[in-house]
């Protein structure tokens, strides 16, 4: 087991980073007044961990006994009937799905699952835990239609089923859904919190941490706890005992992007742009989201850039990222940004150095 999984807190009490949220969640469970929940925040901040811990708090340890199922639903969509296949993760009391996997038919998935849950309503003689929980991952990737169909279903079946929604950005969740949920923002842990966690792990693993080492990892981790723990473990594997000057191996794709950035800084011409295109394609092929590429590229470029150009370059990056989100072929827009940058940079060079 990787340390990430091994040292993941299982109960709300053990949560270290978002203690206050955990406390509130616990209260919600205790008072048996759990509304629909929407967790949102950047990746690696602990949304899933909190959700799992919450489930455990609700249903006890049985919530952790999950099984994977490939289920098919028969859906009547007007004139034709569809067969939808989706992987679900379920325990006795909850179901976890990523409806966005169903593509544009996600709407039916959402409705069907909830309806089905409502049908097989668990009966408890004590009148406790009468609802099931449906965890929906990546709600921000749900289509508009699915989100709209979700909101009615959400209200209609709220007696039988509570939703826990999880997404990265709440801005792509419609207002209607957000207003029906208790929104829980899980922000990225601060570097101090990360250091704290790393030190605790070090203690558990029985490791000697040189001073400042955890801080360096935290700094490199982009405030992503998962990444911090993973690189911590990498360091452990590569060299132990630690030295405070030890190299922290970077993410390969980030390294590659910084190579691209230096390529761009070296020469500005259509030829070079053509080479850069090949590299960009390579990144895209390896499933790195174009937004992240653009963001990272901007960061790398800014690092080497003259201060007076920074503002302008940032503006254009934002401009092209917006267009990228509106459009479909991200390579066009990333390249357009690179071309724009080259143009700006070159004219700047010529203006300053003649």
């Amino acid at each position: 087991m990787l340390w990430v999984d091994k040292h993941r807190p299982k109960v709300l009490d053990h949560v270290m980073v978002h203690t206050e949220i955990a406390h509130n969640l616990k209260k919600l469970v205790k008072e048996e007044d759990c509304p629909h929940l929407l967790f949102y925040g950047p990746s690696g901040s602990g949304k899933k961990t909190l959700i799992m811990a919450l489930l455990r708090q609700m249903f006890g340890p049985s919530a952790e006994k999950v099984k994977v199922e490939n289920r098919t639903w028969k859906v009547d969509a007007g004139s034709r009937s569809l067969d939808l296949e989706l992987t679900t993760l379920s325990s006795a009391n909850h179901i976890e799905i990523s409806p966005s996997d169903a593509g544009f038919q996600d709407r039916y998935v959402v409705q069907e699952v909830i309806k089905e849950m409502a049908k097989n309503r668990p009966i408890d003689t004590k009148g406790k835990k009468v609802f099931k929980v449906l965890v929906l991952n990546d709600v921000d990737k749900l289509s508009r239609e699915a989100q709209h169909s979700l909101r009615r279903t959400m209200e209609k079946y709220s007696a039988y089923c509570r939703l826990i929604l999880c997404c990265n950005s709440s801005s792509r969740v419609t207002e209607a859904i957000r207003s029906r949920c208790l929104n829980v923002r899980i922000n990225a842990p601060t570097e101090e919190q990360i250091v704290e966690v790393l030190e605790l792990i070090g203690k558990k693993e029985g490791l000697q941490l040189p001073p400042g080492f955890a801080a360096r990892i935290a700094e490199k981790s982009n405030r992503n706890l998962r990444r911090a723990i993973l690189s911590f473990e990498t360091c452990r594997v590569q060299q132990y005992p630690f030295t405070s000057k030890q190299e922290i191996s970077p993410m390969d794709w980030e390294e590659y992007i910084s190579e691209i950035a230096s390529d761009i800084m070296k020469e500005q011409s259509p030829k070079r742009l053509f080479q850069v295109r090949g590299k960009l394609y390579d990144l895209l092929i390896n499933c790195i989201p174009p937004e992240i590429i653009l963001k990272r590229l901007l960061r790398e470029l800014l690092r080497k850039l003259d201060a007076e150009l920074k503002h302008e370059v940032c503006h254009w990056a934002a401009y092209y990222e917006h267009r990228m989100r509106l459009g479909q072929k991200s390579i066009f827009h990333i390249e357009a940004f690179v071309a724009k940058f080259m143009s700006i940079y070159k004219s700047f060079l010529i203006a300053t150095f003649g």
Partner: protein
Amino acid sequence: MDMDDMDMDIPLPEELELLESNSHFPEQNQEEEDHHYYFADLDPPTEPHSPQPPPDLPAPSLEIESNGHKRSRPSSPPEEKRTKVRVAVEEDSSTAAADEDWLRYSPPLPEPSAQETTFPKEKTLSRFASEIDGECMPISAPNGDRVYAKLNRFEGEERVKNLDCNSYSAELSSEPINVILERLEQEAFAKALEASSEGQSVPDVPEAQTVHERLWVDKYAPNSFTELLSDEQTNREVLLWLKQWDSVVFGSEIRSTSDDVLSALKRHSSTVHNKKPLNSKFPGKNGGPKWSNGGRYINSTRMDESGSSKRIQDVRNMKSRNIGPPEQKILLLCGPPGLGKTTLAHVAARHCGYHVVEINASDDRSTSTIEAKILDVVQMNSVLSDSRPKCLVVDEIDGALGDGKGAVEVLLKMISAERKPDAGKQSLSKGQLEKKASKKGSKTASLSRPVICICNDLYAPALRPLRQLANAHDFTNNIAYVLALAPCMLTGNNSHQPSPPPYTNLFFRLLGRLTYICNKEGMKASAIALTALAEYTVIRVLRKFSSIHDSSSESPPSMGLLRVTFDDAEEMYHLQQSEGGVKAPVTYGKKLWLQACGIKCLFSAEAGLQGIPWAVVAECLFSVKRGISLISFQKHLRINNLTQSFDIGSQVVGQKDKSKNVLDIWKEIFYKRRTKKMERNSQRGKSFEFDSLYSLVSNRGDSDLILDGIHENVLRLNYHDPMMQKTVKCFNNLGVYDLLHQYIMHTQQMPLYVYLPLVPITVHQIVSQVQKPNIEWPKSHQRYRTMMMEKMDILNTWHHKIPPQIARHLSTSSFVEDLISPLLHILSPPTIRPVALQLLSDKEKNDLTQLVSKMVSYAITYKTVKSDILPQTLKCEVADGLTLSLVPPISDFINFKDYTSNHYVLSVAMKQILVHEVEKRRILQVGIDKTGALANGGHGVIETGTNKIPLPKTNYTTAVDMKTNENQVNVVARQLNTNPTIVSSNLNTDKSSSATNSGKLLNTGNMKKPTRSSSSFFDR
């Protein structure tokens, strides 16, 4: 002018004006044809005044008459249509500014009003009828008073005068009219400009509160053959074909009718060529065709008149020879929608005295019902009130494949059934097999009535058999030149266009019809607006009408709506005022307005272009009309190019398919033609370039591929671009394409596809080079797609393989972003020595077991693969061409081009050890899971047992063990008796495996325990 609809023959002022403004078309036309009305002194178009009236010009008195008509026209009761009523009522206020223009350029008019018009001398107008001697009629004065006006009759002279009037108006249209047109247009622009710069005066918009009970399309659909707007030759042929049935259907009545029809035909064709009094082709509200009026057109002799009359003569001869039904029993009309096929069929059939029965797509079209219907129509003679024979019109026969077939089959069956019995009976000189069946004779189902089929696509598969039999009458031939109109006017590129006149005719007829409608509906439409409308939609007759009528529900790029135009124009003005922008001229129709809205919306959807001022939009609209093809905007988009498509978009549709190879298109885009400098700089050259590229790209269709090609190749070009500005522009345009495409897909606004070809054109303008480009087929995007899908698949399957306790915390995107790089490091620790397990120290063994557990928990192992796909980034040790690589191939995810990572790779021996260990661990785990599952059933008993077994992965069992005790008490009792055996067998397997594994397992298990317990300790 407050004029009622008098059924007068003289063109109304607006129409005259309209005619003038447009008559440069006929003029060109006439010049070509060497019209003999032309006189040398009238020909130079630059001369606005033609001071010398031609010698045989009508006498001044006649001009006065028409002038009198122009200026004063009180209402007259419609029932006196046939009477020439002329009442002189002074109405000075009603002369429009445009009228004055007209007057200015008209031949000099004698000032004194002539004696014929009964002017002040005698009492012509009075409050009391008694004061007027002779006939009088009541009229309403402008202020609402009832007055009586004296009637003056000129019965004797009427005919002559009418004729003269006619010739006078003919003379009018032969004025150097293009000058007038230009001036008019200039003035309109100037006015609009003025208005826009002032930004205050809203032009008076006539209130259009007419309640319309019918769509204008229906209301003004042609009722008689002579009203048809479609190509007259086609019309005539259809009529001819129908007439050939006469002998069968009507027997001997043929003579008389055909004479009528033929003369009508003749008249019709001559009027078409006359094209002066446009509105006179349309009868008044409450009258049928007034061909007694029209008769006077006959004597206008024309060059091609003789030709057409000869044709008709031929027809007559042929007819007299033919006594049977036509050789082809089915008429198939094809052509794009909106041309008037259905109308033609209906009108022609009615004209020939048939009762039209229509079967169209909305009806039931299964074979059986359609057969019954056709039989009913074709073989029965109606005995009901309507005793006319029936004519079957099968509309939309190509429709849906399955549906269309039914009708086609039935028709085919009937034709072939009829052939057989008739084959030997009689044969025609042409060698045709079929001959008419006698009206009563045949028992088989045969066609004894004309059948007209209508389709859009002649080459629809369903129609194939029918096509050979039917008299395929292809509208598309006509369309080809109708549609080619605008481009060829602009560019002179009319290679595939036989002759302009048919188009021009159509255009003018259309224009006339529009004017007529406007007049009927009491709308005031400027000549320019109407011309523009007519121009935009020469062929889409039907659709245009509907859009004029009420098209707010229609999609924006469909044509404009005249009535609403004015309201909208007003709205636009308000908008502009509020935004302080420039005003667009009112004369542009709704269409442009909607287009403008479309553009604005489109671009405001985009980030940087949010505040496109109306000024810009309006400016674009301007530029269309002026034919300016290039104005650059301060914004990054070349909106001017977009607007250009107003002109072109609607017309490209039906052009002959000239689609080219994609490679050729790319070449065309990147290749700049060497043209003469003069031409290149002129508007002409540019617009030609634009048009040809546009049609090229839009004909090809898959703009996606074209764009990919551009994207792939643009950077390989050798264009001079020191500051990368051209490249930036190019990519911005590609981006615009992407956005547009996505927008269209998302909103399903297919008409917006018109704009997509503009992106290649812009790119062409930016980067095209004189030297021939080397085009490569765009592969990279395709490659990127497929490879990404593959990798996504790998990630997804991996994700599913990982046990849910771990996988649930991960998403596929976080795999690549966060997980893979560190994981690769973690999985290949440099500290482990590839030696036999026994030689490892305790600490090393501990590391190894942890490594194995990690690999198992992330479902990773090593596998032998052929080394031809050698991962270059990882320094692999090759063993006989076989390597062990990770499965799933996660190392590929960091395998970038020209990138070397510093990942350490384990030696082959180490990998082999790992493979072995992982396998073992897996087998064990399956067993554990089983016991765990059972243990859950009766955990009270078994828990102790399982804990005694040295378990390498206690974590799973503990996770699995945890279970609420509440509702399982009864289950325990039931399972108690089955448990012991299972436990024992479980113990056995474990023991045996541990024995065979040389005690290593025990070691690992034991070593695992401390860490496990410590972790659980820290968990608390």
